[in-house]
């Protein structure tokens, strides 16, 4: 199948640190791909490199058969990538409504997506006029995902959505992301292996800035050696 997003030997520096030393992966249209690996392996930097927030120095990022690695972040995002950063980075000084409104790329985006967003996260409707810093952790995470849904995005980059959340909330989020993935393509960074197995069809493992293994999630579940070697705490 034609991949929606493809990374070819991407290398990224942050300052003088060589963070990504060769990441290749491909995300087929309509699937959920989990990006796995230990802390500090370069998963977040991979997402940021796709978006141009940490522009790659070498290699190619191809979205819809178009090379985007040299473009500015806002142009890349405007081609239809929604980004849900780690640590629930919503805008604290903006209300829930403003947090959603700011993500509009065309006038009326929010009006068209309202129904979908509040169906997935009914809590947000109740909190619409509350400021971001008054939300609980789970609510902030929901808002961060909802924000990525406002514009018409063909690809969602979701970074550690369940980090530090209570189990009940995690279940709710898994359900929401699963519903989303029926319509959009998702590249998901997830530390929690169980969560990843629930959501993703395939995986890519990154270790020390390199993509070392990829395949289908079903095979990975049956392969405890790989899981132990790359994913469990050293």
């Amino acid at each position, binding site marked *: 199948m034609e991949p929606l997003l493809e990374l070819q030997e991407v290398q990224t520096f942050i300052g003088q640190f060589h963070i990504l030393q060769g990441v290749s992966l491909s995300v087929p249209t309509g699937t959920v791909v989990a990006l796995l690996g230990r802390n500090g392996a370069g998963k977040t930097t991979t997402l940021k490199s796709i978006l141009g927030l940490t522009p790659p120095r070498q290699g190619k990022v191809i979205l819809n058969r178009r*090379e985007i690695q*040299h473009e*500015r972040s806002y142009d890349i995002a405007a081609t239809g990538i929604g980004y849900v950063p780690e640590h629930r980075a919503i*805008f604290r000084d903006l209300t829930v409504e403003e947090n959603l409104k700011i993500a509009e790329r065309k006038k009326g985006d929010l009006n068209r997506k309202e129904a979908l967003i509040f169906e997935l996260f009914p809590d947000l409707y109740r909190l619409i006029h509350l400021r971001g810093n008054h939300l609980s952790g789970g609510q902030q995470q929901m808002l961060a995902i909802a924000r990525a849904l406002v514009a018409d995005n063909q690809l969602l980059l979701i970074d550690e959505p369940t980090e530090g959340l209570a189990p009940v909330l995690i279940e709710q989020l898994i359900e929401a992301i699963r519903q989303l993935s029926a319509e959009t393509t998702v590249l998901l960074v997830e530390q929690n292996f169980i969560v990843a197995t629930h959501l993703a069809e395939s995986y890519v493992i990154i270790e020390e800035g390199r993509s070392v293994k990829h395949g289908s999630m079903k095979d990975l579940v049956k392969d405890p050696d790989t899981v132990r070697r790359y994913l469990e705490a050293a």
Partner: protein
Amino acid sequence: MTKTFQIWRRNRTLWITLAILIFLFGAAIRGMETKDWVITLLRGLSVGAITFLVASGFSLIFGLMDVLNMAHGTFFMIGAYVGWTVFVRPDTFIDILPPVLIAGAGVALVPLWNALLPRLKLGIRAAKVWPWLSLPASGVLLVMALPHYPITKWDPGDFANSPVQNAFEASQGILTLKQPLGFEPGVSPFLVIGGILLGSLLLGLSIAGFSKRGQAGVAAGSGEDVGIPLKASLLSLGLLGLGLLIFLFNDPISGIVVALDRNWLFILAGIVAMLTGVLLGAMMEITLIRPLYERTIYQIMLTLGLSVIGVEFVRAIWGRQEFTMPRPPIFDGTGAGCPAESLADLIQYHCSTISVFGGRVRTYNEVFVPILGVIVLIVVWLLLQRTKLGMIIRAGVQDSDMVEALGINVRRVFTLVFAMGVGLASLGGLIGAPSTGLTTNLGLSLLINVLIALAVGGLTSYPGAALGSLIVGLLQQFIIKYGQLGINLPFLDEPFKPTPPLVPATTVLLMVVILLVMPQGLLGRRE
């Protein structure tokens, strides 16, 4: 119940500090007669309003871009001088317009070059070299052409035509049209204007080239068809046409502007001062600040250097001597019916002073300026709270990367905010000029006040900028007043009179105390 308690606990230090400040204020006015403290209060508000006009822009720029713009005070000063020129020497202002507009027409074409250059498919080496060639070429052309354009100007060395004398005449309501200068014999107007136009075109070309350099090789491969930017081309043509029009009909236009009602002229001066600030700010952000976003120390050195250059630049044009700025006539009435006893009197006679509790309050400085400060406060606040741009600014203050990841061109917002902030400072310069007068060290003394106000109020907080400016203004004026009245201290025989040098010292002292108790300032966010 618990919620009120929580709000109290979260902001305990703030409430206590505010209570202490209000107590101090109450104590300060107890030692004075009513008329004295009312006038001092109004003066404090006036100084606070001027400080706020500069502080608000400074804090917006710092909050959004982490740039400490040490040249902000200099733009305040430049605004005052530019506004003065429009108000006192409108003929000079009209003379300056054509070369400025024509040069602007050339630079305005940058978006067109940005669209056209990729189609030329220059080699990498050529793309690297030609901005460096066209920049000095444009410099040479502009330096050769601009001095030959005749501008009827004051002369600081000749008393009869010095800014001091010009300002005096204007304050008497005499605006005379000076004999306009023509082109020097043997200098062709076509050559001069053509030189300016060509020079600015080359400047625009090199700007376009430099901005492309950062993303080398982008254009080569993509082969995308970028449409011709129609707006920029039309803007450029419009500027060129307007410039030529003013050039051709200089004398009649000067006549009209000189005969203009002086109140309208003051408003025009305000608009021009602000626009100058906006343009200078935008140019500064695009050409000088943008390459240095990651390097804080370089920015501070650069903006400090610019402030020194700005002062020398103003000295070269307007001279070193101090001079005054007349008030607009609507706030300058004297004679019958003045000082005004009531609002009706004020409206009828346009008095320059109002009688309050037996004391005299100056209408412009102590009534108009604070009101204007409040208007600007509200307008900018509405812009921040109620518009999409404001939303982007507030979001960008926290996390500009995330704003960009939503598909918003944050760089453009940076330029806009920088331009807006500098524009507010320049407007403040003109507004303050009738009370401060015009001196080249205006900027530095104000900048120090602004930094103190922001440290007190909270560096990146907009309400904090307002509160800090207010506190600094009030404190200064009350100390000045007590310098005249003296403070009766129980352990001293004679009243203690704070000397003028103590005025800045007290604000610094206040800052030290507040920073010790609340390191983030009164309304700043705790990190």
